């Protein structure tokens, strides 16, 4: 049984939270390649959000290459069209910002990597 939870208090927009939750389900292996996502209207009514919110989340995932939006409003999990280059550029920018913030605060490269490693390990334990 998989649940997704969106918080009204969260700083992220609802559609970003939803897209992040779906990627979490993929990361946990609950959603596999080839699975069909719930229809936009069904998911919107069960979350009690506007259909536009779900649509935006699916569109974001489709743009990033995690799902394929087909006709008849079905969405399939797939990694076939994944744009590796685009992904690297996107995360490159995020890590670059992180690195710059660390440098600005005079955190050494070793400490920075240790911190990242610690974060990832905590996530594994969860």
């Amino acid at each position, binding site marked *: 049984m998989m649940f997704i939870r969106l918080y009204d208090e969260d700083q992220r927009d609802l559609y970003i939270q939803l897209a992040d939750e779906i990627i979490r389900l993929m990361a946990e292996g609950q959603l596999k390649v080839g699975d069909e996502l*719930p229809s936009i209207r069904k998911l919107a009514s*069960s979350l009690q959000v*506007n259909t536009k919110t779900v649509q935006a989340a699916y569109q974001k995932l489709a743009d990033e290459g995690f799902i394929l939006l087909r006709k008849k409003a079905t969405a399939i999990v797939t990694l076939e069209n994944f744009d590796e280059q685009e992904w690297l550029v996107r995360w490159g920018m995020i890590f670059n910002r992180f690195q710059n913030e660390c440098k600005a605060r005079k955190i050494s490269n070793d400490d920075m990597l240790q911190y990242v490693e610690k974060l990832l390990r905590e996530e594994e334990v969860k």
Partner: protein
Amino acid sequence: MMIMILIALFIPLILIDLFTPHVLRKTTVFGISIPEPFIDDPQLATFKKKYSLLIAVIQIPLITILVVMALSMNDMQQSLLMMGGIFIYLTVSIMIYLKLHDEVKRYKALKGWENQVTVVRVSSFETKFNKNERLFPHRLFIPSFLGTIGLTIWLVYIYPQLPGVIPTHWGINGQPDAWSDKSFFSVFSIVFILLFTQVLMYGMAYGAFNSSVQVKAQNAALSLQREHETRKLTAEIMAFFNLITTLFLGFIDVKSNFGILSADNTLSIAYSLPVFLILTFGVVYYYMKRSKAINQQFKELDSAESSPSDDQYWKWGLFYYNKNNPDLFIEKKFGVGWSVNFARPGIWIFLFIVMVLPLLPMFFM
């Protein structure tokens, strides 16, 4: 006879009214959404007791007066009294409900519950694969369909033996009061009525079963289980009610035709109607009992999380209007059973069919 029907009807009605608020889901009290951290607030139990008390002290004397009045009346007057009595009874019940609805609404606003919760929107995220695990029990609707086919075959078989003019309606005393020429319509109308009822009940059960599931923020797994159990229970109850309705109407038709074949035109439903009413209320009793068992499992957890309120989509907690919800059917906010989403154009077609189609035979006869 009428007095028996009166009592057979009102006693179960009063019992249902007395118990209804106590068997419903804890997150909705008199049509008002209660945020999850506060479902065990003692004042809510007081409101429920007050409702039952009001029903008891107003409705029981009302029914007693009706029965006493009926004692000195003839059949015709008793029928009218019963119609009027049902109308007054239902109006009074709704007024008592609206009073409590208003009190809970004000209590909730006074306590400012909505501002103290963390709103969480939870979905069970059901993919195609998960859905296949719970399929609508189509087969439960087969027996009544087969019964109707059987009746049709029998009617075809006896058709040549029926006289040219046949009774089509009977008074409360069992004597025929309307006649019609033997025709395809006058003999087989029952088949269409039965098929119509079955399609309707099947459609409603199917719509309710597949309506989207809204999961609570706390106890999500239990809440999801509750939703699935309620849907399954609804489908079973509808199938059973469909079956007894088919059997009741079919039995009356067979009985009247048997009478006609042996030159006896009277038709009494003195035994079959009470049996039907008892079975119907038995079904309602079973539904309420199971609902209570399913709903009482929920306990307040030590958490401020709650799913969002849907009060803004409900007028008086009775009429649902939500353009964002694609479902035609939605579980009622007060009372056991299902209601409709008035924001869906499809439901207006459904209501039109339910209201107008039963009147169609009048234009052909």
